[in-house]
């Protein structure tokens, strides 16, 4: 493997008094794919931001190809051959792919942009690494996976030798993940070095050469991927044994709690997002909805929660029809809702964790009799939930935006599950959370099931669906294309059905 492409030595970064990185040593060999693992809030993103010049380190040094460098801005990092593929892309939607990629490096003829040459540059570089893009498409019109490629090309055009990927797979569909891995392998073959952050151990095992584990801001170990197992990695991350698969005990199925009858929802373009969906959930049952995102999942969760009104069809909760009720009334009838887009729907970033923990109960006897918020009660409840759900926050007064991603998700889950719901709508409940939290969330959902609640689980993770669901329904282009006991599907069958190639 030759010399080390990157050595970070004794990196310390504090936010206030708490160190997010504590004397971290991190070495990446030239030409390897190095996976960075750690629980939510372990300090992965912080370490990468120090490397990319987005955070100023408090101590430590950075060596690139053996030479000490001072990186105090992204400009320095790019000049040093580092590229970062941002999770939330920093692209200009209205500009074309070409314009986005060459921004800041435009070939010019006179004062004007030489678009022809620019397009050639993009063609050349995308051909070289097999990253297919349409140079003339506008960025807002292409898929998330393609936008990610544009980000990668942007870094490559700036001659990056070391590429940082911070949770690139969190937003991709399974086929897109495979495409990304193909690209990463080609990049590796051409001598590039990559740092890859993920919470999915399967992906770590598949793509990486070595793994470095962080815990509470400290480095735990660096191991070779070939000589370890997912269980060992999980244990190092969490500091205890983790059940990667929780057991699903027998539960007797009770009466019907949710029924959807011939639901149709129209999108803005006039096409049906849900096209005649019929589903039932009984007490003590988890119904899993499998499908590639964008096939009606979002509409399904929002219709049940009352945020979206169907063009046709009816929704029943127990014996009561709730189709026309508003979200507040549905919530009051015992429907808990973990939304897939937690940042947009589930949290108010500028509110404290404690205030977020009463979102939806901001009125009423529990926390605000007479319309006056009882701060003491709210704080007590927040402390209880923070302890019960192991939410790591400096304090309950910390704004939600300052929590790490997994801890934000735990805030939503703690809030929703602590309200004694009758039905839980859980959409992508484990996205972006670490293995320990995944285990925890799975246990909670199974506990709800054990207590005779109904659970509607919408997930892009086949493992999760198969482990938790009693029955699985596959959603494809707004229709249920298959439904049955979860044991009745193999992973392969589900994959085909989700792609619309089943039967």
């Amino acid at each position, binding site marked *: 493997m030759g010399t080390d492409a990157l050595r970070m030595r004794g990196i310390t970064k504090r936010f206030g008094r708490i160190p997010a990185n504590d004397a971290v040593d991190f070495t990446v060999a030239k030409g390897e794919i190095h996976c960075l693992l750690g629980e939510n809030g372990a300090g992965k993103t912080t370490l990468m931001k120090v490397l990319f010049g987005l955070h100023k380190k408090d101590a430590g040094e950075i060596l690139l190809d053996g030479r000490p460098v001072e990186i105090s801005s992204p400009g320095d990092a790019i000049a040093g051959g580092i590229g970062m593929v941002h999770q939330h892309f920093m692209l200009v939607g209205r500009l074309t792919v070409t314009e986005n990629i060459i921004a800041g490096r435009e070939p010019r003829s006179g004062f004007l942009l030489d678009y022809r040459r620019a397009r050639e540059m993009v063609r050349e570089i995308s051909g070289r690494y097999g990253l297919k893009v349409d140079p003339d498409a506008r960025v807002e019109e292409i898929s998330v996976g393609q936008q990610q490629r544009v980000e990668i090309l942007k870094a490559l055009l700036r001659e990056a030798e070391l590429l940082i990927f911070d949770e690139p797979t969190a937003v991709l569909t399974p086929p897109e993940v495979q495409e990304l891995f193909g690209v990463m392998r080609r990049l590796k073959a051409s001598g590039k070095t990559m740092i890859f952050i993920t919470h999915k151990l399967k992906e770590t095992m598949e793509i990486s050469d070595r793994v470095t584990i962080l815990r509470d801001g400290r480095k735990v170990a660096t191991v070779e991927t070939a000589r370890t197992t997912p269980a060992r990695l999980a244990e190092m991350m969490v500091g205890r044994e983790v059940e990667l698969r929780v057991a699903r005990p027998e539960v007797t199925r009770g009466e019907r709690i949710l029924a959807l009858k011939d639901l149709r929802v129209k999108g803005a373009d006039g096409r049906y997002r849900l096209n005649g969906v019929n589903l039932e959930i009984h007490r003590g049952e988890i119904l899993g909805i499998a499908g590639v995102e964008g096939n009606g999942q979002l509409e399904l969760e929002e219709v049940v929660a009352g945020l979206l009104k169907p063009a046709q069809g009816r929704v029943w909760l127990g014996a009561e029809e709730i189709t026309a009720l508003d979200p507040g009334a549905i919530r009051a009838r015992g429907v808990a809702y973990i939304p897939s887009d937690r940042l947009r729907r589930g949290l108010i970033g500028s509110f404290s964790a404690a205030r977020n923990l009463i979102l939806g109960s901001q009125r009423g006897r529990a926390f605000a009799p007479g319309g006056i*918020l009882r701060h003491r009660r709210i704080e007590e409840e927040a402390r209880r939930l923070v302890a019960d759900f192991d939410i790591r926050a400096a304090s309950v007064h910390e704004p939600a935006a*300052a929590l790490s991603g997994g801890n934000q998700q735990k805030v939503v889950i703690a809030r929703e599950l602590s309200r004694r719901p009758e039905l839980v709508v859980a959409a992508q409940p484990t996205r972006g959370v670490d293995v320990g939290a995944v285990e925890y969330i799975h246990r909670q959902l199974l506990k709800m099931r054990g207590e005779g609640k109904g659970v509607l689980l919408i997930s892009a993770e086949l493992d999760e669906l198969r482990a938790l669901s009693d029955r699985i329904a596959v959603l494809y282009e707004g229709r249920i294309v298959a439904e049955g006991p979860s044991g009745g599907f193999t992973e392969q069958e589900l994959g085909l059905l989700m792609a619309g190639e089943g039967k």
Partner: protein
Amino acid sequence: MSGKKLFIDFAYSLGAVFFALLLGGVLIHLSGYDVREAYLSFFDGAFGNVYNLANTLMMTIPLIFTGLAVAVGFQAGLFNVGGEGQLYLGALASALAALFVRGLPPVLHIALALAAGALAGGLWALVPGYLKARTGAHEVITTIMFNYVGILLVAFLVKEYFKEPGRADQTSMIPASARIPELIPDSRLTWALFLGMLAILAVDYLLKNTSLGYEIQAVGQNLPAAEYAGIDARARMTVSMLLSGMIAGLAGSTMVLGVLHRFINNFSPGYGYTGIAVAVLARNKPWGILPAALLFGALQSGGMSMQLFARIPMDLMTLVQGLVILLVAAPALLEILAASRRRPKEVTPDGRDPDGHLQHQ
């Protein structure tokens, strides 16, 4: 909101004020005036003695109300630019209540006149608020239009129905029982200053301690999340517009009941608009309104004496005021606008995550 950020904001604003005064000094010098004399008369005029200070505070009072009005709208994500119109409606309503209701004891009479002003201002803001909530008509456009309509309507009513005989377009003097008593004898500073602080206190309490305040802020900070929580966003928007207009109306009431003692057409030098700068400078924090309003009050009263004693033309003074707004309020305004544009996607109004990592977008 962390104390540290609050402190940084404050220090920044203070620095910007000094810088603006410095730049103003350069301009004054370049125009051939004595800078020292100019600023001496400025500070003397604003804070020099009890009466000048009282004068400054007198000018601060309406700005407390108009600034607070804008801040309340902002809490629900609404930009109420209609303070000026609401102020005029409040002023006339208070004047009429003072003139035509007779035989009440002083405190009650004042309270009634204030209530009339708040009601009129509130109703004048309620219409744009309702239009926004029902049809999505942008409140900036509608409130600006309502400024014109309101100011002209009030002028027409006075001219046509309530004019005191004589040349000026004004009502007759209100009875003593409706006048807000003065705080310092022989000055025009009245107890309305405490009314302003009371309003701040009430808004602060509403936002921090009530379900309604929680919901208004939820709507302003993250509308989809507010809907998720079962909050009736339209109703909350309408209510916050109503509140905002009521407070702006009180600005007019306190001018009429405390200072002018009658309604005079075109009496306001733009308190409603200056209120926007006040709110922006205060970062829409209720208690920030007080120092921000004081700054603009001082600029006004100090500016007058600069004009009077250093013989500096008013235009130059307006320029210096403009500099303060540009340097102090404009960056803050940009920040607020940028944050509100980012809001749907990012949870970090402080821009803490430039790489937009999914976890903390």
